[in-house]
């Protein structure tokens, strides 16, 4: 055990531990010292705490990789510069466009974009509902003076009331069903792609690509099963439905930090990469000595020289320059010229 702990990343372990304490603290605060905590959801809470630990751990390890650390550092540096307002607005715009609406997937395929959007919207909505419920931040009570009015509490305060049977009650109590339907539609679209696209068939893996979709469908179907049970079966299969649903959700939570779903958290780095590009362009562009054209920002090339050197790729040349000063086309031409030179020196171009 001690040896296992020793192989763990220290900084990441600290960050992950701190984050679970934060989660526990906000659960206690939000549920008013666990007064409003729903004991039936305790398994989900453990799953969530584990997921938070895992995500914080993996994220911290990830940030320690030199190229990631550089982007992380530069993103904040450029954001909190004198251009804070334009960069913050730009990031907000890109957040809406690319993170929420996922428009960057659109050019990769319309149906693909739609399918992925369904997955994302369904999952995010479901999280937005279930996490506050699990943490005991939200709970519903029957109004003491009525037999049909429900009060919704947030952090222990009544925020709204509604009558049973009204549209708002139907939407509130069935919100997770809609999420499940949306996620299932998305998952089916994505599964269809995986069955028919030759390129995907060649490169996909079961655990990396199929399992996440199966898991999402399983969560959705078992979730719908709970509603189906109390709507049509008078709760006769409640135990089975709720146990299978809990198992699928907890599997999902445990797997969240390790598998494909981790990309949800990595994706935000795209915003940083965008600021980096824009700020780099402002600071000045590098011109390729071969093509004589601008091809990237000087900041990017210089940063990359440092990072690649740290990682064991020192592209410095004897003349004091660097192979990285060339644009991609310049690099291809340099190789072709070297090949030509060698052929020429040998006296034979072919054969």
């Amino acid at each position, binding site marked *: 055990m001690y040896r296992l702990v020793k192989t763990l990343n220290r900084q990441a372990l600290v960050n992950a531990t701190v984050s679970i304490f934060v989660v526990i603290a906000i659960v206690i605060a939000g549920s008013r010292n666990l007064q409003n905590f729903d004991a039936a959801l305790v398994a989900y809470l453990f799953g969530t705490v584990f997921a938070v630990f895992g995500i914080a751990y993996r994220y911290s390890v990830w940030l320690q*990789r030199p*190229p*990631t650390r*550089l*982007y992380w550092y530069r993103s904040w540096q450029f954001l909190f510069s004198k251009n804070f307002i334009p960069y913050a607005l730009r990031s907000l715009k890109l957040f809406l466009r690319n993170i929420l609406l996922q428009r*960057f*997937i*659109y*050019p*990769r*395929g319309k149906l693909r974009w739609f399918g992925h959007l369904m997955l994302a919207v369904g999952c995010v909505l479901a999280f937005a509902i279930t996490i506050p419920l699990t943490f005991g931040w939200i709970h519903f009570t029957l109004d003491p003076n009525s037999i049909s009015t429900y009060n919704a509490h947030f952090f222990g305060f009544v925020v709204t009331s509604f009558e049973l049977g009204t549209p708002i009650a139907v939407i509130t109590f069935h919100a997770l069903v809609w999420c499940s339907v949306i996620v299932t539609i998305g998952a089916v679209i994505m599964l269809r792609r995986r069955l028919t*696209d030759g*390129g995907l*068939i*060649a*490169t*996909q*893996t079961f655990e990396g690509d199929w399992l996440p979709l199966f898991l999402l469908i399983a969560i959705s179907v078992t979730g719908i099963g709970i509603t189906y049970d109390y709507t049509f079966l008078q709760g006769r299969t409640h135990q089975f439905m709720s146990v299978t649903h809990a198992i699928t959700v907890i599997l999902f939570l445990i797997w969240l930090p390790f598998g*494909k779903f981790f*990309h949800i958290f*990595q994706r935000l*780095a*795209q915003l940083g*990469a965008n600021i*980096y*590009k824009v700020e780099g362009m402002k600071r000045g562009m590098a011109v390729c000595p*071969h093509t004589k054209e601008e091809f*990237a920002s000087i900041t*990017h090339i210089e940063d*990359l020289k440092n*990072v*690649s050197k740290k990682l*064991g*790729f*020192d*592209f*410095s*040349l004897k003349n004091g320059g660097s*192979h*990285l000063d*060339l644009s*991609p*086309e*310049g*690099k*291809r*031409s*340099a*190789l*072709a*010229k*070297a*090949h*030509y030179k060698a*052929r020429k020196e*040998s006296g*034979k*171009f*072919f*054969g």
Partner: protein
Amino acid sequence: MAVSEYNQEMEFFVDMQRCIGCHACEMACAECETNGQESMIHVHYIDRAVSVQTTVQVCMHCDEPACATVCPADAITKDNFGVVHSANTSRCIGCSNCVLACPFGVPIKFEESELMMKCNMCYDRTSAGKKPMCATVCPSQALYYGTREEIRKRRPESVPVNTFKFGELEVKTKVKIMMPKGATKIIVD
């Protein structure tokens, strides 16, 4: 990955001197199903002002890929066959680090979709025992996919080389370049 018949006896041999700039490989590359109908191969004049010689560049599938090493999103992976795959679409954040760090100028960043794509040696085909698209159509055999024995017979005056020098840095690759007999490496600059 669903690999069944990756034939590791088959190797990729490139001889840019033989490239006639016909762009047939470029058209064929777009047929590769793993690229979503985008061509990944590069064909262009080396230095149009002084020569009409063209060059062709596929991914060299480096033993230690610079592209994967500098990727902040861990989006590029090398498999057990030595194939360095195109960016994992769910991870790539479109930062272009790989585009600028690849010593052979291979990866392409698609701005609109914030995604890098590159040659994966037609993984859909090679993993099923077939040749990459480009090598099947190249009329001058600047791109050749076959066994070592075959290439030795066809090019008795040349040897396949897979060691490249960029300054002090040495890069070894899965794809080979045909060099004059006796050569062991290519000194790029």
